[in-house]
């Protein structure tokens, strides 16, 4: 007896956004990444289209980070002090694209200069043909000082510049518009705040297909349930036809999962926490999978083993299309 399974018929869909530009389009990338386009909740192939698979970005830095877990230092070994080498290693580890994060201070403890930042970005672009996302150090003034010259020096590459927040988006959006780049817009786990920032950015004239939205997340055990539900709500709103939520979502489970105790600390923790390395990788993977299932389009990760596991999961989630 055939059973009628209720299907949701959605009027809306997520926009498609393409990151990176090929030489024929004014860039130097050897490939581009296109995300978005969904007309259904995550991976429900039986009721809508998922034309583009979610992608995994690996996060690298412009210099050896000071506060990353020793496990990450072990995983990346000697490439960590050279962004170009790190980029190549990340590409080999399976990254679909790269996130380069700039440090507030350089190796000598002085503020990173625009020249240093530009040369880090250029060295990464020269070393790897993958599309690129560049995040500033996360302080309004430093972000503006570094991102504008980077944007100008890489005109036409369709880099994603971040992070745009409510207090600090104008300069970044303006330079992205002038130099054919994209932006990443971050808000604090709230549907209305996300919509509002997207409106502000598009009001400046940046087309919506050049914006990724970052709803923020917490790590497993440290607020992931809020991220999970806000992403489900944002995606439902998009499918219901709310234009200002119809942007692909980028999230940073790697950053969140690797800053908490479970992954940072190996000694003096309860025995019931188990093996340190496996625990840390589980922490990152589980955080990522949970967000993937609630609508993430770009997942930014740190450990190569997590990348492998999450990519395998994406393969299986996408290939289920043939099974139903």
């Amino acid at each position: 007896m055939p059973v009628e399974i209720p299907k949701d018929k959605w009027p809306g869909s997520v926009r498609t956004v393409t990151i990176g530009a090929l030489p024929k389009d004014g860039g130097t990338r050897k490939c581009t990444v296109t995300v978005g386009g969904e007309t259904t909740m995550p991976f429900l192939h039986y009721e809508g289209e998922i034309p583009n698979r979610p992608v995994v970005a690996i996060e690298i830095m412009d210099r050896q980070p000071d506060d990353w877990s020793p496990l990450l230092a072990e995983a990346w070994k000697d490439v960590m002090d050279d962004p170009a080498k790190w980029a190549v290693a990340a590409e080999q580890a399976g990254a679909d694209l790269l996130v380069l994060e700039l440090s507030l201070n350089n190796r000598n403890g002085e503020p990173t200069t625009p020249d240093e930042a530009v040369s880090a970005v250029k060295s990464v672009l020269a070393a790897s043909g993958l599309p690129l996302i560049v995040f500033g150090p996360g302080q309004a003034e430093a972000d503006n000082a570094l991102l504008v010259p980077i944007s100008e020096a890489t005109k036409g590459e369709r880099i994603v510049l971040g992070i745009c927040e409510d207090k600090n988006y104008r300069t970044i959006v303006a330079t992205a518009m002038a130099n054919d780049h994209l932006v990443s817009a971050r808000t604090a786990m709230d549907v209305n705040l996300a919509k509002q920032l997207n409106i502000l950015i598009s009001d400046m004239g940046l087309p919506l297909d050049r914006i990724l939205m970052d709803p923020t997340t917490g790590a497993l055990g440290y607020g992931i349930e809020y991220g999970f539900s806000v992403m489900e709500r944002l995606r439902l709103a998009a499918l219901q036809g709310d234009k200002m939520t119809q942007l692909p979502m980028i999230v940073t489970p790697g950053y969140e999962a690797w800053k908490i105790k479970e992954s940072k600390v190996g000694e003096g923790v309860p025995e019931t926490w188990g093996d340190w390395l496996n625990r840390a990788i589980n922490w990152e993977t589980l955080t990522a999978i949970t967000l993937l299932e609630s609508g993430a389009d770009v997942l930014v990760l740190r450990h190569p083993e997590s990348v492998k596991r999450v990519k395998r999961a994406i393969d299986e989630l996408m290939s289920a299309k043939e099974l139903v």
Partner: protein
Amino acid sequence: MALSGIQIYKLLPQTNCKECGFPTCLAFAMKLAAKQVELSSCPYVSEASKAQLEESAAPPIRLITLKSNGYEVKVGNEVVLYRHEKTFYNKSGLFVKLHTSQIENALIEETRRINQYQVNYVGMDLEVDGIAVEDDTHDPAKMKAAVTAIRSVSKKPLILISSAVDVLEAGLSQLSGETPLVCCANSTNWEKFAELAGKYKAILAIESDKIDEFVELTEKIKSKGIEDLVLIPNGKNLGHNLILQTQIRRAAIKANLRALGYPTLAFCSSPVEAAQAITKYAGFVVLDEFAAELIYSLLVLRQNIYTDPQKPIQVQPGLYEINNPKENDPVLVTTNFSITYFSVANEVEGSGLPAWLLVADAEGMSVLTAWAAGKFDADRIAKAVKSTNVTDKLSKHLLILPGSVAVLSGEVEAELPDWEIRVGPREAVDIPKFYKLALQVN
């Protein structure tokens, strides 16, 4: 599907005899629809109406309870697809699988490890719910021996897995008085399995990768009088499982399709599969192996996904003493969000360093969330200091702020002029180091 007052009225005697305590049958029907009275208050409802009303009042996903001597695992009774619509109620039961081929000592050893496992997460002791025993020897005697061995060290509920009725029966015979779960029934063996489940009052799990087949089987099995069922969607991969789980949940909740209104069970051979099972609808999660770091991360995920989105988990605001603080020890101030409180409390406790932990009432929010929402400011911190009389307990008045709200230090100084205000590290992990370097305490 819940019936309206009018629909219920049509099923009542319509004599307005008032024995239920209401002036009319309609008034009683309205109260019933609002779930403010019990059907049993009306002595005259016909058996047929009663059955129909009970059926309609049943939750869309049946509540299933696995029981053993002293333990219960309840799953089902869910009412939404997305947790923000209300909440998810009954946490997925987490089980670890053992095998009948394992030698007795190994079984006992593994069982003991699983049974003893307990991990603390934000003040809650979390545990594995039970053990699944899989028959890989096709020998009833081995199943019997395995169950006996497990029962010699653990009382937790069991799931028995085999394709052979006699093997399952050998296990069930050792579990009198319990409600275990047996699997897996399918389109060829279902009759014998239903009989077995009936005889031993066990819960029966049905396995398939086709929705239509589930419907057919649950209806057939139900007609044999077996109502406590569990569905095992065994798709071809992770994505297929997500779709089957979602379709079952949707059909039950949105279309009120009784034939699919049962909790599900997922066999998981990787952390990723288990994580998906927890977030996407599995009632029971059976893991292939026991590894502390895996169980810990899954127990935390389960806890997170099943918290009520309307109520952050909180601790009581107030003054907490850690490691017997004395009058010259520092006061660390934090918020009453459980995760925040325990991150700090565990860190200080583990380091052996004494401290007064002052928990301000920040309406259950984390430090930065509360700060951004105006619920953790100089005023609230000062209030916390005053309302707890911590000042009287101290000779030295040193207050440490969380590093992420360093900006508050000026205002706090103004509010608490007799106190020395210091800014601590941003992350709780760094508190012991801060004690040593900045406070020079060892």
